[in-house]
């Protein structure tokens, strides 16, 4: 059991050892995204991703399919007007695949911290009167996001990819339990060799 665990860690840490040809995956990826909670509550998301354990597959002699596990770190801000503003610092682990003609897909699991700020005037009782209240509250977030898009490096050599990611995630605590949220992310990825 312990040996299996050590091998798993090593497999995740040691990159670029399982192929001889050049991978479509770079050393790093940075991303800038439109992030729309409930689609219309717009925001922005910055990310940095690290492809690990890259694998090449050749279905035919000149057709290369790239796959990799990708770890990521994201900073997300969005505003749900008159409800709340969300600031999330999250990490993700996911699987990316770049097809032979550049079709890129991924599936990611993401978790982290969320700071929620009430978007309005906040009051709390203070004695017989009222005072301005604290707008902030802390939450845990956990979610999944599949993605599909296009990696331009396969055909045009441009180190860019564009992806669309629907997000489903939960925010907890929220009232007496949690709340589920959905978002759409349109992500531009810059591949850095």
């Amino acid at each position, binding site marked *: 059991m312990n040996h299996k665990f050590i091998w798993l860690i090593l497999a995740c840490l040691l990159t670029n050892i399982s192929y001889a040809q050049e991978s479509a995956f770079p050393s790093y990826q940075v991303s800038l995204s439109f992030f729309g909670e*409930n*689609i*219309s509550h717009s925001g922005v998301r910055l990310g940095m991703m690290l492809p690990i354990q890259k694998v090449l597959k050749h279905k035919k002699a000149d057709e290369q399919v790239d796959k990799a596990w990708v770890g990521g770190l994201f900073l997300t801000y969005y505003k*749900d*007007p*008159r*409800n*709340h503003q969300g600031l999330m610092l999250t990490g993700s682990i996911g699987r990316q695949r770049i097809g032979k003609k550049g079709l890129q897909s991924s599936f990611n699991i993401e978790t982290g911290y969320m700071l*929620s700020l*009430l*978007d*309005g*005037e*906040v*009051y*709390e*009782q203070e004695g017989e*009167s*009222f005072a301005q*209240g*604290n707008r902030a*509250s802390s939450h845990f977030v956990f979610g999944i996001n599949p993605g599909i898009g296009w990696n331009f490096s396969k055909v045009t050599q441009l180190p860019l990819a564009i992806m669309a990611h629907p997000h489903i995630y939960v925010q907890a*605590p*929220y*009232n*007496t*339990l*949690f*709340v*589920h*949220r*959905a978002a*759409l992310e349109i992500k531009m990825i810059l591949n850095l060799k």
Partner: protein
Amino acid sequence: MKQITQYIIFGLALTFFNSCTNEYNLNEEGDMLFLKHKGASMPVLVRGNFQSDIIILMVHGGAGGTSGVHIEDFNGWIEPEYMVAYWDQRHAGSSQGNMSKDDLTLDQFAEDMSLVIGMLKHKYGEDKKVFAVGHSWGVILTTYYLLTQENKLEGAILSNGSHSTEHEYSARIDYVHDFAQEMMDKGIDMPNQITAEGNTFSDLESVVEWTEQNDPIDSWEKLRTLNALVDAVFGYVQETYVRDTSDIPFPISSEEITYNSPYHPWVSSMNQLRIAQLINNPTRENSIQEFYDFTPMMDDIELPISLIWGKYDHIIGPEVAEDYYDVVGTAAEDKELIILEQSGHSGMYRENKKFSESLIQFVEKHR
């Protein structure tokens, strides 16, 4: 694959453009206040005529509903006259926070209501006169507020809620019995077979017989059966007596609420499901709005009361309003009962003009 991608892009674009329509400016007009209290962050959207010295406080139904759906009820006639405060109660609508489920009590809701009124007066001036509009569960809450808290209201407008489940269930039994009999007299069959608490009802005769043998409702088992039997007549009553469209002057689209308002349907539905699980579920026998009776205390209420009631309500019939009118301690000249002849549970929506005119008349008389 290409065609599927095109459909997805078209769908997303359509949704996005829908989200850009802006009929009401719910994200800009008025003020958004939050009351933070005992773990809850309760939103209060204040709209309307800010020059007025009257604030109408919407006390929504549920428990676990939202005041957001009532914006269209008040936007046409009442907002031009008065300020309207749309309060989402704790764990309801777009209310947020991190609270204990032990704080989901009638006493806590009433305390919240008192603080919301206090906050509105703090923000807009102590001289503002606040009238509450309670709908359904909001009537229970407003009544309990009047019975247990120091009153800061000038008056209350109450619509299709209750002060006593004895009368509520009696009215519901009459609703099922009388309309089942009417359907039989007209030769109309029961639309569907109904099974409840191990009993199967295949025809209207068995429904009528059950209502005659089980009045009064004094157990959860009987209550669940009665609630199921409402379905035997509900469709007929709606089709025959209830206005099939509303006379609201400015309807609000679901897209507007979903994409351009502080009211988030996913969040509201999650709140509603959870609150139903915790305090509002007759199937689990944990509803705080079943089997209670405020009647012995009603004489303590003396402020002006207007009861504006949909006549064909399958949940809380007009008999409840009649009893409320009789038992409340308010002087005869300060209370009134107005029946909306073509409405069910949501008279303020179905007969919006009559509801609004009645409300304005009442407020003007008692301001």
